[in-house]
């Protein structure tokens, strides 16, 4: 799948027209369902998709569930409970291609904010009967547990990107999604940069494109929904925000949102927090 020399083997069985269609499954782990909705939201294309694949398992869309194995499994959500940690192993066993979709599945999602805190404190604070809660201390991406063939980023994912990935798999070529920054989309769109013109901290320069740079068009700094770019210069961006007058804690919060547990964002946030701590100590 990640061979630099060519695409994956097509998932469409290379047989006469009557041959079985490739089987698609959609699984949910700890998530908000928004990424599955992106698939349901692809109304026009959904029929075409149903013509190309057999939707064998997609409980959000259909009560009919067929047992594996599956040619392609789309996996939404993070791994947050012992049950999920086991279930993802079974999904992997049943799947020829496993595609992690969305910030939860690719980086742990917003629930990975727990990773910086003591899970027991949350359980005590939130649940009337903490004893019933069986959870892991962390929320982690699918790739921490099983081999993932492709990661489609986004919070939520972009339905056109999802269709492009499925189309690529159907014909057997490498899925192509842009890896450049949100700034590139922002400029194509013609938005005036809000960092430059309004002093708003924006994660666009270090975030992978995919959303079409929606937030800056509505005067919001990018929240990093599509995760870090391939080689983000987090330190430089952090320094720039500091120079613009942002408080370190504010920048740490910006780095720690939907993709806060993605390596680059996590390390940058931790580093900044550490720097802030030591400088506060020195001052104190």
């Amino acid at each position, binding site marked *: 799948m990640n061979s*630099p020399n060519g695409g994956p083997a097509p998932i469409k069985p290379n047989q006469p027209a009557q041959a079985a269609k490739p089987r698609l499954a959609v699984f949910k782990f700890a998530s908000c369902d928004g990424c599955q909705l992106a698939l349901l939201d692809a109304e026009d294309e959904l029929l075409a998709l149903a013509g190309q694949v057999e939707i064998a398992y997609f409980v959000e869309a259909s009560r009919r569930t067929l047992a594996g194995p599956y040619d392609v499994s789309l996996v939404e959500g993070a791994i947050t409970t012992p049950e999920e940690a086991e279930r993802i192993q079974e999904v992997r066993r049943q799947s020829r291609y496993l595609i992690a979709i969305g910030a939860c599945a690719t980086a742990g999602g917003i629930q990975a904010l727990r990773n910086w805190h003591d899970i027991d404190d949350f359980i005590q604070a939130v649940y009337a009967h903490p004893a019933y809660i069986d959870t892991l201390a962390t929320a982690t991406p699918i790739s921490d547990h099983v081999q993932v063939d492709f990661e489609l980023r986004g919070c939520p994912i972009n339905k056109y990107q999802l269709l492009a990935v499925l189309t690529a798999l159907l014909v057997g070529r490498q899925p192509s999604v842009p890896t450049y920054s949100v700034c590139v989309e922002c400029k194509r769109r013609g938005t*005036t*940069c809000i960092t430059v013109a309004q002093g708003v901290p924006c994660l666009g320069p270090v975030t992978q494109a995919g959303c079409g740079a929606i937030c800056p068009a509505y005067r919001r700094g990018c929240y990093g929904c599509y995760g870090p770019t391939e080689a983000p210069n987090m330190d430089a961006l952090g320094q720039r925000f500091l120079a613009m007058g942002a408080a370190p804690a504010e920048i740490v919060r910006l780095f720690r949102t939907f993709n806060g547990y993605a390596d680059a964002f996590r390390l940058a946030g931790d580093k900044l927090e550490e720097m802030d701590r030591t400088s506060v100590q020195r001052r104190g």
Partner: protein
Amino acid sequence: MADITPKIGAYISIAKTSLQAVFDNLKAAGFTLIGPTLGDSAIECAEITQTTDLPIGWTQVQEAGTYRLQRRSDQAYFGYAVGPHSWKRYLYPPTLKLYTVDHQNGGFTVTPATPATPQYAFIGVRPCDMHAIAIQDRVFLHNGFQETDYKARRQRAFILAVNCTEPGSTCFCASMGTGPQIETGFDLALTEIPEIFLLEIGSELGREMLTGVDWWHAGAFELQTARQALTAARSHMGRQLDISALPNLLYQNLEHPRWDQVANRCLSCANCTQVCPTCFCSDVKDVSDLQNQQAERVRVWDSCFNLDFSHVHGGNIRPTNRARYRQWLTHKLASWVDQFGTLGCVGCGRCITWCPASIDLTEEISAIREEGTR
């Protein structure tokens, strides 16, 4: 006076309010007017119809990585420098569908996209941007092949240029020999002086667009006021760039430590290349439908700061920020000369203002010049 139209090359004066009549003539001739207008937080380029759409009474302050709108104390129509947009958006759009391919009887057919070519009148093209258009002409029209969509848009475009009497603080056109005064290539060139617009007629079409407009031959005093304003502008450039010894200065300093320093600050976000009015890089993207029966090919702006841009068989030839920043700067100020016989920079200052990391190419060049090999 209005019944006799002025000759090409003539300098005339009009009352500021008469500019609306020029706009009306352009609209009547079928042009879509694109010009500066007040956006949310900057003077942007967009479709305009009336002179009141212009940012009258507004200006801006620009610094590396910073842009802020400001009120003027007067009601100047053109009292600001270039903003985030350039005319490149309109001549060489960021996204353009090229053609559709259909699978048919074992073969395929290609259907080129044939959009109606827009007929733009660009209002307020600054001298630096006039030169940028001339540079893109070299790239797209006079370089052994022709970019047909660019050519069609370019040929239909009307240019009302505006001389710069108030350069911005990131401008350095005087260093590049591209401003603050326009010499050629326009249909009409305007200089704003108190109370009136001085116009130079650059073409037959420019002359026609003055039909019915009240004008008089520019007087000696008006001409002198304009000349003085432009001379003053020349010495009010916010930035300077010593272009002596370019391109060799860069070729001889490819291993200069300054590249590492700037790479530490650079975000590889590509903003500089997207706002630059001369950068021309693009990519083509294919999108096919699920049945694999139809595909579309779309051209999109690309950049040497995008990692995929330098991905070739076997790996990436510019895997670091250092390599990418060096590519950008050496292309603009060195190898562009080998390719197109001109520097690739016109001193508009956009890449300085709109760099979220506040990187300033004039600083980078002077650092290399001061500490480098010559």
